[in-house]
């Protein structure tokens, strides 16, 4: 390969001379400026850290004019998608600040709400304001903190008033956002059990196997975590 021989040459000879550019100028002639610029470009690109001019010089053949090469490189990259930036005394290549948004890509994934979440949401909608203990009583299983968090994050529920009972538990209510999402004027508009039955919504009773319990299992002990 090229490299072994290349670097061999490099390390040995020129270092001393580099300190004293006046000495033996012809012997180890520095590469042409265009080449020096390429070198600086490659070094800045490949290096994980910003490099000071001295550090760059250390990697270059001796006799190179780092400052000039950097100046050329800077102007070459001016206005490009990648620019040469100065970080304190060091130099680095960075994407142009105005293009940062390109690096952020937002992926929207549509996912079905888990059964636990939808049930919890339904209970809150029908019974609001409702405490966590009440939700658990109705569902017959513990409600995991993740489920509540998810609904809070979706901005479909929020904390209501504390219940004036021992322990003053927090209650949950649905939000405007919830009503908006589900196309309701108010939570009171939700159809009652009788209407659901009449609408045939209760006939789908025997649940298709497997649909159940996905995350109900997880809800073990962390109920305690939630009490606040």
């Amino acid at each position, binding site marked *: *390969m*090229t*490299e072994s021989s290349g670097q061999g040459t490099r390390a040995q000879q020129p270092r001393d001379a580099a300190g004293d550019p006046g000495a033996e100028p012809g012997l180890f002639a520095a590469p042409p400026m265009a080449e020096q610029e390429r070198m600086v470009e*490659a070094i800045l*690109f*490949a*290096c*994980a*850290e910003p490099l000071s001019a001295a550090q760059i010089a250390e990697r270059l053949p001796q006799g190179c004019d780092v400052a000039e090469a950097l100046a050329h490189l800077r102007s070459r990259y001016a206005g490009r998608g990648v620019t040469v930036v100065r970080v304190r005394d060091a130099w*680095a*290549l960075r*994407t142009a600040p105005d293009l940062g948004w390109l*690096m*952020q*890509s*937002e*992926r*929207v*994934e*549509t*996912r*079905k*709400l888990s*059964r636990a*979440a*939808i*049930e919890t*949401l*339904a*209970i809150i*909608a*029908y019974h609001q304001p409702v405490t966590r203990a009440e939700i658990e009583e*109705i*569902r*017959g299983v513990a409600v995991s903190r993740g489920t509540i968090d*998810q609904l809070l994050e*979706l901005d479909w529920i929020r904390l209501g008033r504390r219940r004036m009972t021992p322990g003053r538990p927090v209650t949950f209510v649905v939000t405007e956002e919830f009503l908006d*999402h*589900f*196309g*309701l004027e108010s939570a009171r508009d*939700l*159809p009652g*059990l009788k209407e*659901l*039955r009449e609408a045939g*919504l*209760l006939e*789908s*009773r*025997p*649940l298709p196997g497997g649909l159940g319990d996905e995350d109900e299992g997880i809800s073990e002990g962390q109920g305690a975590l939630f009490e606040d």
Partner: protein
Amino acid sequence: MPDDWDNRDDITARRAAEALIVDVEGFEGPLDLLLMLSRSQKVDLRRISVLELAEQYLGFVEKARALRIELAADYLVMAAWLAYLKSRLLLPPEPGEEGPTGEELAAHLAWQLERLQAMREAAARLMGRDQKGRDFFVRGQPTALAVARKVHFEASLLDLMRAYARLRTRDEFRPYAFDRSDIYPYEAALERLATLVPGASDWTALQAYLPEGWRGVAKRQRSAIASTFAASLELAKQGAVELRQSDSFAPLHLRRRADGGAEGR
């Protein structure tokens, strides 16, 4: 063949062969060894004398045997095959003999060696290419392209209502399970009735024999009646009791058999 081998005056070749034997561990199988041996012919692999190569190989194996060097089985398999090949090459084919000629087999072996050699060279060329992380480099500080994963959860009003309906009607659809606490076992009824029968000299309604706590509550009473009735039939069969029913659906009466069941019915 071993003699031929020993008689060779080419001392360097012999030395090389001995070195080969010592190095046998270093070979990657018989084909590798053949390739190495073929180099001594100093010709293009396409013009190699397979016969000579076979002899070299067989000589090698002989030598190894003489030196009590154990060769792996595949070296011996190759030796057997080469011995066969040699005979095919040297002997005129039997008239009417089927199968490939010695030349065809030899050509195939030569081709295999050429292919292996070609792959070796290709491997060397490949490794001689500029390599990432050695000759060319990726950006030193890649900004992992940030992916803000935004999950949009979907739930319709229908999902919501169904979920609620499911919850609120759960109890109506409790799966059927045998409720043991309301079952009066037949065995218990039989045991109980058998102990009571000796005192039953008069006709008594079956209901009277129901245990305490099994009357009144319909579910429990039904179970107790059924078991006690079954027990009474068993005792009647044994001849311990007599049963009487005045009419269909009339109360069933039972009493001890006077003769203790000695006579048939």
